[in-house]
């Protein structure tokens, strides 16, 4: 049995973590936590970390003891520099919580790249993990909507760089901008994205700890994640009716199944394909032909097949990327945003227009 640690940092990480815990109840009602148990195949420990207590209170399916509040007013206000200081001040407290949970085989840290707490805590937390523990640590990073503003874009750019330099074993990208295609209002869109990520992660954990017809294990996952530029994404498809397995695999690799916009056959470096369903759907020839097609482009594909009676086909793909044109686009926008913020600050410093206004009354006293 795998020992898995999942940490949700900041508001986005907390919500994805809560979605995972809710999914683990088996998609039951909101009262499921009173009568049901979270069903993880592995030993999964979840921890939510946030400086904003209201964000922690929003979590409904994560136990109170799994929620760590880092007291700093009500958040760090999207300021990563403040967030880093707060983390350093509370590092011992956070690590004590982690160490109390025991030893792990793998850790996933969920965060948004653009926010305050998550984007500033995650690189430092990974760094701390890598110094203390020898298990692999993967970051699942959610990229912001491009129109969310310069501060978020700036944070995303620096956060991703910091995470990559923290010693992380791999970054799994999920892009809100890409995923907003599912539509709906803001709340349902966020919830939908969180659910998508949660379902994929749970499928992955289930697959890594299951007996398979064809085995893919944590080692294979590590190998996949070591490939490419250290960046990865996950594709997933779950059939809601009978569908050929070839179509299911293709849909898992298509933009509708991926968390990050990429051309799989152009940008992927290594891949893992895990297929689950009733034996009748698992035609080895169909699977092999699709896997071969993929391996022809990306090089190596780890293949796992899980037989589950009476279940419709489900396919999960993990893809590491050699390049990411969408990420380059993000960084080019982020550079503009950083420059804009920098120029704005310089203007304020140089012009000191407000100070001049105040200086007019220097040396004067009020008379009554």
């Amino acid at each position, binding site marked *: 049995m795998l020992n898995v640690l999942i940490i949700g940092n900041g508001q986005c990480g907390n919500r994805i973590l809560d979605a995972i815990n809710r999914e683990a109840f088996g998609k039951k009602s909101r009262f499921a*936590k*009173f*009568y049901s148990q979270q069903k993880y195949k592995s030993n999964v420990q979840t921890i939510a970390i946030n400086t904003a207590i209201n964000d922690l209170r929003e*979590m409904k*399916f994560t*136990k109170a*003891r799994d929620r760590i509040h880092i007291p700093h007013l009500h958040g760090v206000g999207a300021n990563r520099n403040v967030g880093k200081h707060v983390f350093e001040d509370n590092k011992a407290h956070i690590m004590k919580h982690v160490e109390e949970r025991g030893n792990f085989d793998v850790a996933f840290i969920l965060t948004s790249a653009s926010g305050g707490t998550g984007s500033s805590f995650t690189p430092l937390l990974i760094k701390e993990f890598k110094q203390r523990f020898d298990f692999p640590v993967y970051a699942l990073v959610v990229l912001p909507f491009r129109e969310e503003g310069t501060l978020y874009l700036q944070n995303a750019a620096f956060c991703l760089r910091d995470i990559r330099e923290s010693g992380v074993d791999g970054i799994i990208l999920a892009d809100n901008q890409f995923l907003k295609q599912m539509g709906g209002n803001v709340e349902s869109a966020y919830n939908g994205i969180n659910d998508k990520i949660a379902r994929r992660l749970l499928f992955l954990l289930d697959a890594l700890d299951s007996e398979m017809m064809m085995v893919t294990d944590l080692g294979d996952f590590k190998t996949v994640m070591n490939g490419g530029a250290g960046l990865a994404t996950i594709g997933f498809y779950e059939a809601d009716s009978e569908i050929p397995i070839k179509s299911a695999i293709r849909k898992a690799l298509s933009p509708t199944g991926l968390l990050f916009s990429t051309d799989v056959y152009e940008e992927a470096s290594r891949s893992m394909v895990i297929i689950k369903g009733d034996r009748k759907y698992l035609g080895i020839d169909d699977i092999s032909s699709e896997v071969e097609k993929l391996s022809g482009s990306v090089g190596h594909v780890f293949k796992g097949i899980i037989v589950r009676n009476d279940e419709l086909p489900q396919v999960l793909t993990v893809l590491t990327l050699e390049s990411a044109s969408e990420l380059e686009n993000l960084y080019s926008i982020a550079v503009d945003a950083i420059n804009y913020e920098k120029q704005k600050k310089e203007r304020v410093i140089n012009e000191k227009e407000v100070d001049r206004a105040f200086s007019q009354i220097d040396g004067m006293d009020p008379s009554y």
Partner: protein
Amino acid sequence: MLHFRKTLTIASLLMFFILVSAGGASGKVLYNDTIDEGDGYQINDYVIDVAEVVPQHETVFINIYEGDSDDPRYEKLISVGSSFEFGLEGENVDITVISVYSSEIPRAKLAITITDDDIINSRTLGVVEGGHSEAELSTTPVLAINKVVDKSNMNVGDVVRVTVTVENTGDGDAFDVIFSDPPQEKFILVDDILGSPGKVDISIDDPVKKIYVYDMKATEAGTFSLNPTTAIFTNSIGESFPMASSNQPTVIVEGSADQVSASLEVEMELDSYTVDRNEDLHGTISIRNVGDAPASAVNINMIIPEGLEYKGDDPSIEIISGVPTVYLDSFGIQQEKEFSFKVKAKEVGTYTLSLENSYLYNDGINSRMQSASSDLMTNRIYVTKGKYDYLFEQPVYVYLVPLLIIGAIAGWIYHRHKQYKF
């Protein structure tokens, strides 16, 4: 001469002692002292006046008056050493002149004896200054009580009116007169028109006075002498007189009486005779007087057995000493009345409700009220198990297990809530 005087004195003393001893032997000495001329000595209604004392002749004029008459009954000249005897209410009174004395007002020493002083009214005994005209004389009221009936022949059930009158035929007023008229056997007093007058005075000047007027109903055939009406009284000086008594008129009653009676029909009905435990039974008590006389003091007690509980309803049913009771002062002929009540079935079982009723009535013959009573019992009332009784008949674990389960669920929910509450 001197010798003669001594001899005379000795002879007088000797005679006095002889007379005294003779008087003492023949009667009671009432008086032995001097009385001034013009004064008198009263014995009952007699006054012995010392009308004139003539010392020169050693004689005394004695006038004896009876009552308030101004004409003396006796006029006597009595010499010293002589006496006079007269009759008084059956006894003999003897007057002896012992001596006379001359002074501004002459006086005589008299010795008065009587053969038996029992008749003497001590309040009128004594010297009366001024003589008989100043004496306080006693009187003798005489009450003539007359009892009459308006009819002397009648049938049973008829009413006779009795009138009692009184008249003072004596020579003085009667005081503190108290009449007594005992109840008449075999008759019922039906109307007391003029009741006892209490303590009254009856003057000789009063006309004939009605004392009692009442109507009596004959209840039995026969010839009856009505009980006399009596009176006790005193005269003006408080002397009591023998009880005066009326005549006793005779009434002849024929035939036989129509006896009547009250007869109460008491019924108790319930709306059901099978009821679940903890349910109510509604009942009605009906009373009807089917007799030919009204009833009084009607008392109906409802006997509620253990296992049933009286729940009230009709305010006319009162709880007296824990017993639901209906009480009616009177209940007329053919009168009907209903009382509703509720009884709660407390315990499973078979019960009966009972009524104990009693009442009084006048049967038209006897002077005393007749009493009657009866009991009544309902059919059996079956109290069966209540709708939810089975809930209380189960073993403890039947209640305990669900409670424990509910408690465990609640505890679990609370535990989980605490687990997930941040």
